[in-house]
């Protein structure tokens, strides 16, 4: 059925069919028809990542190396994996389009220029490091060396990653939970706000990292101290955001809920909190970025484990390749965590953009 509609032209749609349109089909119907030239251009752009991938490969293989390069095939493998992943994505999109679902291919077309740029960036980086040494070796190691060392040292890197994640989530969730409790009670009760507000006003402007030296001296264990610092930062962000969210609830919603028989407990949990959700989740996102900063500083300054510590330790042994490997792992996990948070946010707040399941 859906395939049939999307193949129809504008004129041959009768009234009955219009009744069963999906959002995607509607968009296709109303879109201006693309000219042959535009279509060809779209396909060229979608093929571009392959071209750039091959350019990156050729650059690595053809341009003579400036210095030594052990295990040269690792980087080739890495590029092949990236190109292969794009190939699978590409084939999947084309198959989907043949089945009538154009959205996936549109997304691919949207992402293709960025992915092409990624390959070019890899090629440029390789040229600046391994080939010419404009970025001095071994201080800025080439990609091949970074991937090699990450693989050799993988067991230790994983241990450190797990340690970082454990510390991050422990501190973050404690902070978010306490932040929700204080924020919501403050937003709701004037008396609690009276006592808590000065604390927030006083502690708020102090950057989290300021606490680190103090905590390192006072705390019984460095791990606990780090948890405290991360929790403190998250607590602050979430408290402020949920407090504003709750106290900004439109009074009319409370009136309406009261005439509908909501108890005062229900006014909090069924009206105030859902209404403040956008603000609360905003606070959670902010808390995560503050937690990411805090954990790195804590690990670099005191805690004897985790990726931050690994980086610092690698630096002191002049193992710059390890340092960069850890940097990429940090990049990767923080991106993943932020992405996950964003997905949760979109799911919870789907009423805001009016997206129907």
């Amino acid at each position, binding site marked *: 059925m859906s395939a049939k509609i999307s193949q129809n032209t504008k004129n041959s749609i009768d009234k009955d069919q219009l009744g069963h349109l999906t959002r995607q089909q509607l968009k296709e119907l109303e879109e201006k028809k693309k000219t042959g030239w535009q279509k060809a251009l779209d396909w060229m752009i979608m093929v571009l990542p392959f071209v750039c991938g091959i350019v990156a490969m050729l650059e690595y293989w053809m341009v003579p190396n400036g210095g030594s390069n052990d295990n040269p095939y690792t980087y080739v493998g890495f590029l092949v994996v990236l190109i292969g992943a794009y190939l699978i994505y590409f084939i999947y999109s084309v198959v989907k389009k043949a089945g009538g679902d154009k959205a996936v291919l549109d997304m691919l077309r949207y992402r293709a220029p960025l992915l092409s740029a990624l390959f070019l960036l890899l090629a440029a980086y390789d040229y600046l490091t391994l080939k010419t040494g404009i970025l001095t070796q071994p201080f800025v190691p080439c990609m091949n060396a970074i991937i090699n060392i990450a693989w050799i040292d993988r067991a230790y890197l994983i241990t450190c990653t797990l340690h970082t994640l454990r510390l991050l989530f422990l501190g973050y969730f404690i902070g978010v939970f306490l932040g929700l409790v204080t924020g919501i009670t403050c937003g709701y009760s004037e008396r609690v706000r009276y006592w808590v507000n000065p604390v927030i006003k006083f502690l708020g402007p102090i950057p989290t990292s300021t606490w680190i030296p103090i905590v390192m001296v006072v705390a019984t264990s460095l791990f606990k101290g780090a948890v405290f610092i991360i929790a403190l930062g998250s607590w602050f962000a979430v408290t402020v955001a949920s407090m504003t969210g709750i106290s900004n609830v439109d009074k009319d919603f409370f*009136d309406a809920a009261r005439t509908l*028989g909501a108890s005062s407990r229900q006014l909090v949990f069924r*009206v105030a909190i859902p209404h403040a959700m956008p603000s609360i989740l905003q606070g959670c996102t902010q808390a995560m970025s503050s937690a990411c900063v805090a954990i790195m500083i804590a690990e670099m300054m005191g805690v004897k484990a985790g990726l931050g510590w690994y980086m610092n330790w690698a630096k002191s042994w002049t193992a710059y390749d390890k340092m960069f490997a850890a940097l990429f792992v940090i990049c990767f996990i923080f991106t993943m965590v932020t992405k996950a948070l964003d997905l949760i946010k979109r799911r919870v707040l789907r009423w805001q953009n009016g997206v*129907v399941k």
Partner: protein
Amino acid sequence: MAEKQVSLVLENVSKSFAKVENDEVTHALNAIDLSLRSGEFVSLVGPSGCGKSTILRLVAGLIMPTTGKITVDGKEITEPSPERGMMFQKSTLFPWLTVEKNIAFSLKMQGKLKGNEEKVEHMLKVIGLESFRNDYPGQLSGGMAQRVALMRSLINEPDILLLDEPLGALDAFTRMNMQDEILKIWQEKGQLALMVTHDVDEAVYMGTRVIVMDSNPGRVVGDIKIAEGYPRDRSSNTFVEYRNEILNRLHFGGRN
């Protein structure tokens, strides 16, 4: 017709508000005496500041009178209750709940949703929005949102229906449609309906009784029975006479 016959009595009710910016107090309502019964559709009209909305909020139990008392069947009103359903000018639908869940909100709050799902279904059917059940209020037009809000307060089968300028924000055509829809629902159930409006035509078109109010301080200056059957002709002579009489009471002198 109605499940329960009720009588609503306001005895010498005054309500004053303290101003936020200074120490002054405004007298929104001054010594109001009213007696209303089930089966009546009472329109409250008057200029802004005459305290007509205040009466509604008092009856709803959202605010307490400064002096005097308000009783339903002799029992004083102390807090809001689903037995006195209220509809606001702004739809106040909860934007995070779907249409269906908005309508079911009241039942859910009272723990009565289990076993009453068909009531929600019925309400959706009455307003013809079954296919919108999973939509969020942000996706609805103003008229649809007000229909849903009406059903949300009617699901409790309230004895008293309070309408606070429910159609004030709608366009003229939607407005006339909804006037008839509300009348139909009220005629079926025969509750006591109490509607605030600033539109004299609407007051005459819908009410069995029009209470005219004036401001400074808020007081009743007229209580007019509309002895006309439904549906009413907006251009008939009697209709125009009623309207002129109300305007006269408010010193906006009509033709006579």
